[in-house]
């Protein structure tokens, strides 16, 4: 009886040892995505940053501002109307020394982007990082 129970218990374990190579591969994939992937609030619209060589993305950031090709603005993943943008930018002030990250579409109106940058500067935000994509 006991011998049978023993066999019964051993069988699932033997089957599981066959899963070890699978777990190895899955662990490797998991480690790859952990290291290579970047987690950040995503924009509520499609944004394709301009092509330009730059430096590696800095973390942490204080706030992420997205600007779409049509001029829509989202702050920390939340789409905002024109009057709410200024209020939200005003709220950024004094939240710490980390830079503000600006993710703007390559086709966005540069004058619009500069006006957002100017508003940030007026609120005392000195460090703004503009996200680009490798050419």
């Amino acid at each position, binding site marked *: 009886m006991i011998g049978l129970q*023993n066999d019964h218990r*051993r069988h699932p*374990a033997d089957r599981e040892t066959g899963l070890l190579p699978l777990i190895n591969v899955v662990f490797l994939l998991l480690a790859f995505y952990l290291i290579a*992937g970047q987690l950040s609030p995503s924009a509520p619209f499609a944004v394709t940053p301009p092509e330009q060589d*730059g430096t590696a993305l800095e973390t942490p950031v204080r706030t992420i501002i997205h600007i779409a090709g049509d001029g829509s603005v989202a702050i920390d993943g939340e789409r905002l109307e024109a009057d709410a943008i200024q209020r939200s930018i005003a709220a950024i002030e004094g939240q710490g020394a980390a830079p503000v990250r600006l993710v703007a579409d390559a086709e966005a109106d540069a*004058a619009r982007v500069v006006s957002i940058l100017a508003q940030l500067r007026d609120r005392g935000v000195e460090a703004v*990082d503009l996200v680009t994509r490798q050419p």
Partner: protein
Amino acid sequence: MGAGPRITPQPPPRHALIRLTPLIDVIFILLIFFMLASTLESREQISVGVAPPAGAGPTTADTVRVSLEPDAVVVDGRRVTASAMMSAVAAAVRDRNARIIHLQPQAGVSLQTTLQALERMRGLDVEVSLLEGGGEG
């Protein structure tokens, strides 16, 4: 004979310590989470500075103002074509011994175009700042 079977059941705890199947379940869920939530596209960053509004800052003789328009470029008030921009800017910087360039994109100019101009002007070994204003402000 009676003692033998009592000893043999001892190995099983070794197997029962961690069951692999729930572990794999959790790892798969983590894997799927990171695959969906992370972006693998390589992103980089450049730092951009905005000049103080005209009049407030030191817009003196060592500053060259370049205004980008959809179909032309105005370098220190002189209108040139987009292809002649760099030579005009380089000449202006050399003539006036300028250290600062204020780049002012007008409405209708894309960010890509502006950044390309910005990077090329940074190659002239001068400080390049963006300047608000022009068409829509």
